[in-house]
């Protein structure tokens, strides 16, 4: 069982689970495309915490760190492309509300 005064794997996993659920809540409820992007970043961060925590507590293997770096790189690429798309959407629709951008040809 987990105790409060011995920081174990479960502490990190629970933090990551809370972070994941908050990110999921943002992605589900927000209409602003930039806000949805923030939710995705939270989800990616929670996955990263899991990877590093497992690497530290269970496998003692550097692979978890390497995977986390790949996730960070993909998050950076995703943020750049997503923001370019969002700015284009804003130029075409004058809004970034994902409910109102429902045409392919703006």
């Amino acid at each position, binding site marked *: 069982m987990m105790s409060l005064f011995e920081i174990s794997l479960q*502490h990190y996993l629970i933090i990551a689970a809370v972070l994941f659920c908050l990110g999921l809540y943002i992605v589900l409820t927000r209409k602003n495309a930039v806000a949805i*992007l923030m939710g995705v970043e*939270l989800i990616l961060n929670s996955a990263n915490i899991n990877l590093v925590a497992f690497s530290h507590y269970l496998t003692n293997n*550097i692979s978890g760190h390497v995977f986390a770096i790949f996730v960070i790189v993909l998050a*950076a690429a995703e*943020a750049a492309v997503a923001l370019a798309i969002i700015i284009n959407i804003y130029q075409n629709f004058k809004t970034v509300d994902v409910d109102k951008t429902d045409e392919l040809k703006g």
Partner: protein
Amino acid sequence: MNISEIIYHLIFYVFAMLVIGSALVVAFSRNILYSAFALLLTLFGVAGLYVFLQADFLAAAQVLIYVGGILVLILFGVMLTHQISNVNLSNPAVKPWLAGPLVLIILAGLIWIIVKTDWSGPKIWLDLIGSELKILPGPTTQQIGQAIMGKYLLPFEVVSVLLLAALLGAAYLARSRGKSNQ
């Protein structure tokens, strides 16, 4: 338990509360700019957790890439997609009564699994990983570099090509249109 352990635990819980509290602000703030700045604190807190997990290189990379890069991009996105005159950068939640319980159920399920699982039990699958790339004491930067240039060379090259493609794609998408825009 001596004083240094108490301080260690205290700092851990401060970082945990920082991560979760600022993530709550990101999720529930009505103003998207507040959300963006709370995301800054969340990412810093995650970097702190990496330090607790003895991932020094990842903590530095987290601060450099997330806080220095991605967050600035997101702030640019927030600023560029609102009218200057529109002071109220509102960011309302849609159907929170539907998403809230759903997310709470998922969270309860996850925490139930995390608490119930016997993490210290036998780990047969550890044999699949093998004994190479064990974390040695000391800084992890050199070990990560050797892993990337050794066992993970192919994923590294694929990611570098993907970064190039994303760079070109973002530059192509965000370019000014010139005449075709009119």
